[in-house]
C-alpha cells in the first residue's frame, strides 16, 4: 500500500469515526464499531478532543432537560373514553394548557396510580421562569387565586424569615400562567422533584425581600393551583 493510499485510508477512517462519536458517547455502537472508534482514538488527537466536546454537549443537554412530567389522570381517562367510543379519527380531546380553568379535582380516584399521575407538565415552565426570575419582585396576582385573606391557613401565623423547603403537589389542571404567577408571587423556586409521587420540593427565597415562610405556605395552600403543601421537616 502506498503512503498515499495509507493516508487516504486513515482519512476515511477518521471521517467515519468522527461521525460515530455521538453514538460512542451514548454507548449504542455495535461492538465492531466501538472497537474501531477506540482504536482510532488512541492515535487521533482531533477525535479525542472532539470526543470531549461531544461529552460536554451530551452532559449539557441532559442537564438542561426539564423534569419529565407524569400524565394527567384526566387525559388518560379521556383517551380511554375515546377508545371506548371507538373513535377512529383522532381529534384533540386532551385538555390544553392554555385556557384550562382550574376545577376541583374529584378526589384521588385510583389511589397510588392517580397520585403518581399528577399533572406536572406546567412545572416545566416554572423551573425555567423561577431560575430566570429569581430577582423579580412579587407581581400582583391577576385571576384565579384566592388571597390569603379569603382562605387563611393555620400555618400562616407568626413570621419566620429563615429559608424554608416545602413539598408541593400541584393540581392537575393548573395552567402554566397560574403556576408562574403563584411561584413568582411567593418567591419560591423548585430545587427538587418530581418524586415518584409527583411532588416537587420548593425552596422559599430567604429574607429580606421575601414574605415570612408561614405566610408563603399559607398562600400556597390557599391556592387552587396547589393540592398539597407541607414544610419539609428538618429542612429549616
Amino acid at each position, binding site marked *: 500500500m502506498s503512503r498515499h493510499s495509507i493516508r487516504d485510508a486513515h482519512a476515511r477512517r477518521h471521517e467515519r469515526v468522527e*461521525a*460515530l462519536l*455521538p*453514538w460512542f*458517547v*451514548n*454507548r*449504542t*455502537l455495535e461492538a465492531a464499531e466501538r472497537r474501531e472508534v477506540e482504536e482510532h482514538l488512541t492515535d487521533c488527537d*482531533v477525535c479525542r*478532543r*472532539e470526543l*470531549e*466536546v*461531544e461529552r*460536554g*454537549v*451530551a452532559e*449539557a*443537554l*441532559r442537564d*438542561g*432537560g*426539564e423534569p*419529565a*412530567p*407524569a*400524565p*394527567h389522570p384526566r*387525559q*388518560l381517562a*379521556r*383517551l*380511554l373514553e*375515546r*377508545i371506548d367510543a371507538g*373513535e*377512529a379519527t*383522532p381529534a*384533540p*380531546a*386532551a*385538555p*390544553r*394548557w*392554555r385556557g384550562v380553568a382550574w376545577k376541583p379535582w374529584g378526589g384521588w380516584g385510583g389511589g397510588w*396510580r392517580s397520585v*403518581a*399521575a399528577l399533572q406536572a*407538565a406546567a412545572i*416545566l*415552565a*416554572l*423551573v*425555567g*421562569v423561577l*431560575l*430566570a426570575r429569581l430577582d423579580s419582585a412579587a407581581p400582583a396576582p391577576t385571576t384565579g387565586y384566592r388571597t390569603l385573606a379569603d382562605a387563611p391557613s393555620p400555618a400562616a401565623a407568626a413570621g419566620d424569615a429563615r429559608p424554608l423547603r416545602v413539598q408541593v403537589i400541584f393540581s392537575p389542571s393548573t395552567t*402554566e400562567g397560574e403556576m*408562574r404567577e403563584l411561584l413568582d408571587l411567593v418567591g419560591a423556586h423548585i430545587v427538587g422533584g418530581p418524586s415518584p409521587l409527583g411532588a416537587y420540593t420548593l425552596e422559599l427565597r430567604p429574607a429580606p425581600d421575601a414574605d415570612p415562610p408561614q405566610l408563603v405556605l399559607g398562600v400556597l395552600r390557599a391556592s387552587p393551583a396547589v393540592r398539597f403543601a407541607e414544610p419539609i421537616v428538618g429542612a429549616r
Partner: protein
Amino acid sequence: MEARSDYELLARVAAKDRAAFEELYRRYYPRLFAYVFRLTRRADVVEEVLNDAMLAIWTHADRFAGRSRPSTWIFGIAHHKALKALGRLRPHQQASGEEPREGDAVEPQSPDSLLERRELRGVLGQGLRQLSTEQRAVVELTYFHEFSYAEIAQILDCPVNTVKTRMFHARRRLRALLPQLGVSHAG
C-alpha cells in the same frame, strides 16, 4: 425492575388489553412528552400529539413486528404525529423547522410562553433552536433518549447516513456555542 417488558405490554395492547395500555401509557408519557415538546417547542400541541400517538399505538399495536425495540416503534409514531401537527399549524413552513418569519402570527403564545423562555434561557437551548426540526430530533434522540443511529433512522424513517449527516451539521452549529458551555473547542 420492570414488571413487564415493553414487548409483552405491546403484545397485550395488540390483544386490546386496557390495563396493559394504561401501563404502557404511563411508562412512555414522560419520555414522549419531553421529546415532543423539545422537538416542536409548542406547549399547546404536545398533549394533542401524545394523545394521537397513544391512540395510534392502541389501534395499531398489532402491526408492531418486533423487528425493532418497542421504544423505537413508539417514538417513530410520536415523531410522525409531531411533524404532522407542526405541518398543520405551520403550513407555510417546512417541517424542517424554519423559524417563524417576522410578523408571523402562527405561534401567538410562544414568544410569551414560559416553556419557550425555559428553552431560550440556556445557551444550549439557543443552539438547539437554531437547528432544523430534523437536526434537533437527531440530537435529542441521541443524547436525551440514547437511541442508536440505526434506531433513529427507523424513528425518523430515513436512511442511516441521513441521520449521521444531520448530526454532523447539528454538531457544527452547536460547536459555536461551546465556549459558553464551558467546553473547550476541539480541532
